[in-house]
């Protein structure tokens, strides 16, 4: 951080301020796959705490700790805007260096599904990103669309002459 401060010519404390504020800056070593569990209200209501517990129990680490083989670490982060598919986790993938770096969302996860995702990652597979609920397409509702099924009606007040 002191080096960063030198490069951008500010006092070191200004860099510390930013780095401690944003959870995306990792100030300690993380695993090849850094798993971030969303802990904001919608995900929390939909069970993000259980998901985190399941991950931690499966990997045998505490929060912000790296597994012994250096593969995984678990952290918490703030809302990533997928609340419609809550709960969700994000996997920051450092396994292929900075060029192949990916940052994928896995939504609609369950405690069982996150363990499966972890195991797939451990085997080197790429689990499908996005919603993990087979009944949904992206963020659409389960079981197909329920609204906006027909053509939209024109707005009633557009006929200016009638007004």
């Amino acid at each position, binding site marked *: 951080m002191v080096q960063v401060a030198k490069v951008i010519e*500010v006092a070191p*404390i200004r860099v*510390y301020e930013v780095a401690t504020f*944003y959870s995306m800056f990792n100030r300690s070593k993380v695993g090849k796959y850094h798993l971030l569990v969303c802990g904001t209200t919608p995900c929390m209501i939909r069970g993000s705490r259980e998901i985190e517990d399941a991950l931690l129990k499966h990997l045998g680490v505490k929060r912000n700790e790296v597994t012994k083989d250096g593969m995984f670490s678990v952290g918490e982060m703030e809302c990533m805007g997928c609340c419609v598919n809550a709960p969700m986790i994000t996997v920051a993938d450092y396994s292929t260096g900075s060029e192949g770096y990916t940052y994928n969302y896995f939504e609609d996860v369950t405690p069982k599904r996150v363990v499966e995702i972890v195991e797939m990652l451990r085997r080197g597979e790429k689990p499908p990103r996005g919603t993990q609920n087979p009944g949904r397409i992206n963020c659409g509702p389960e079981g197909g669309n329920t609204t906006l099924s027909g053509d939209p009606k024109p707005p009633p007040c557009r006929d200016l002459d009638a007004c």
Partner: protein
Amino acid sequence: MGLGLLTSRALRSSSRVLTSPHHRNALVRTIVSTPELQSPESSAAATQSPPDLPQRTPVAGARVHFPNPDDAIEVFVDGYPVKIPKGMTVLQACEVAGVDIPRFCYHSRLSIAGNCRMCLVEVEKSPKPVASCAMPALPGMKIKTDTPIAKKAREGVMEFLLMNHPLDCPICDQGGECDLQDQSMAFGSDRGRFTEMKRSVVDKNLGPLVKTVMTRCIQCTRCVRFATEVAGVQDLGMLGRGSGEEIGTYVEKLMTSELSGNVIDICPVGALTSKPFAFKARNWELKGTESIDVTDAVGSNIRIDSRGPEVMRILPRLNEDINEEWISDKTRFFYDGLKRQRLNDPMIRGADGRFKAVSWRDALAVVAEVIHQVKPEGIVGVAGKLSDAESMIALKDFLNRMGSNNVWCEGNSMNPNADLRSGYLLNSGISGLEKADVFLLVGTQPRVEAAMVNARIRKTVRATQAKVGYIGPSTDLNYDHQHLGTGPQTLTEIAENRHPFCSALSNAKNPAIIVGAGIFERQDKDAIFSAVESIAKHCNAIRPDWNGLNVLLLNAAQAAALDLGLVPESENCIESSKFLYLMGADDVSLEKLPSDAFVVYQGHHGDRGVYRANVILPAAAFTEKEGIYENTEGCAQQTLPAVPTVGDARDDWKIIRALSEVAGVRLPYDTLGGVRSRIRTVAPNLLHMDERQPATFSSSVKPECSDKMSSTPFGTAVENFYMTDSITRASKIMAQCSAMLLKK
């Protein structure tokens, strides 16, 4: 400090009547041609108010200054129309209208953060309450400060603030002058709805002066902004987020600023309090005495809080022209030196070399007897750096009556230039430095010599990107500066227009050249001053509307001593002296003093001067007497007694008056008023209290100097910022500071 406190202070300082309770002193008050200056409140409040609304006075005497009359806009605060310049915030508009808005993060001298949300007000046509400190006032805005919506919003903010604030007011040093305490009386609930655990934060170590209880912090970031903007040390920051947010330095480190004590004042809660004052007293037990500081030549306005015979703490007073509302750490924390190493009784050194306490009668008789045995040429007097004008005129009068004129004030050198006041004053004025756009510092390190002047230069540099050129030993000024060179060589180059910095100087509108008083001690000072004057002539620094040739003095007594004409007759009088009268002078070099010389030390501390003394006469320190001091810009101010004198000590001028009686050359004044009438005949400007008396003649009438400058580089005038005089050298806190903060 509490809001109410600030308010009352500001009101007091603006309406201070200087004929004071002491009518016999007959202080002069000049007539000011602009009556608005004398009562800013009434002129500011004279904004046409409809007759049906009661007249309100602005909060804290807030003044409205219209840079451009066309930019005036009118807003309505609670239905009361008020004219303000464009660009003012809603909060400032409310202050002008006489409504005090509660606030934590807003501070008029710091940048706006807008993060405490306590200053919420209702604005007509705005869907939500607005944070008044960050909202610019717009023409015709209708601001409502006392509606149920505003009150409810503030109550909500207060509930959140108190959620994590510990309920330790009974053991908190801020108790009684705490903004949070005061405002929770108005907006706080009697019970909380928060049932979880309160958070706690690890305390930080910021050094020997500032005590931290970080759990009490409400994250207003005033201290962070103060450190960054005013003090110029980017040490503090806001770390983490959410409930883990805290103020800290991240990597544990001390706050190494000479202004760090001010964070104690600006902290609205008890998170940052004074370490030396911790658990010593409650602020409502203290008696405040409005006085001035004498540890440097700035003359910062202070309030001495005392309990009984003890000085408990020192706080700044508002004075826009001198110290704004800050003071340096030395000023704030040296007070414990007033209790140590004090001289209580008159003492005479016996044949065995040990001091023996005697009565005043005996001590004065011995001194009078010796002084009559010495030839007038052998009588020498030196006034110390903490001497007031009264004692210096008394000393000079006494020695003159004894036939000697070898009297001077330490720091002024043996042949000072006392003829023209412009030759030793900060002619631009301390607040006038804000108008300068290029600074040239010659042989001065204002950061250690006069921390408040340095803060003013830093403020100017920050506000206007003014250029600063510095000649002297490499030093850490807390603003951007060009280090031009270390000695007179560079000065000659600039004077002869051969230096790249010359173009900056000559293009400047208001160049300010500041020469350090350390130069006074040099042999070639006349040559240096003539070089500086030629620079000033080149860049047109001396004009009727701007005098940019400044001297920054080091000691509180220097300016008054030169005004009173304390100039020794011969340059090497110490070598031939047989009778040396040291009036609190500790830093004068006594190596060349003949061994058979008789030394009288009159002072309040057993410091360096005492080692050589034959007779000690105990005197009062500046907290115990009424005395006039002139600061470096030529503004005379007076100290007032806050505590009784120690032991058998007396005021300095009274001792000399008594001695003159015993010696048979009675001085013709018996009261303080009498001494001041005598001062008026010598230097009438010293009686114009609290008004800057600028020098009338510029130095253009000085004779040319033909001396050559030596090539010795400029030295540092102040080696240790925390220990410069007898009081600070006796202070334990200052010793801790020098040990912890100055080690590299």
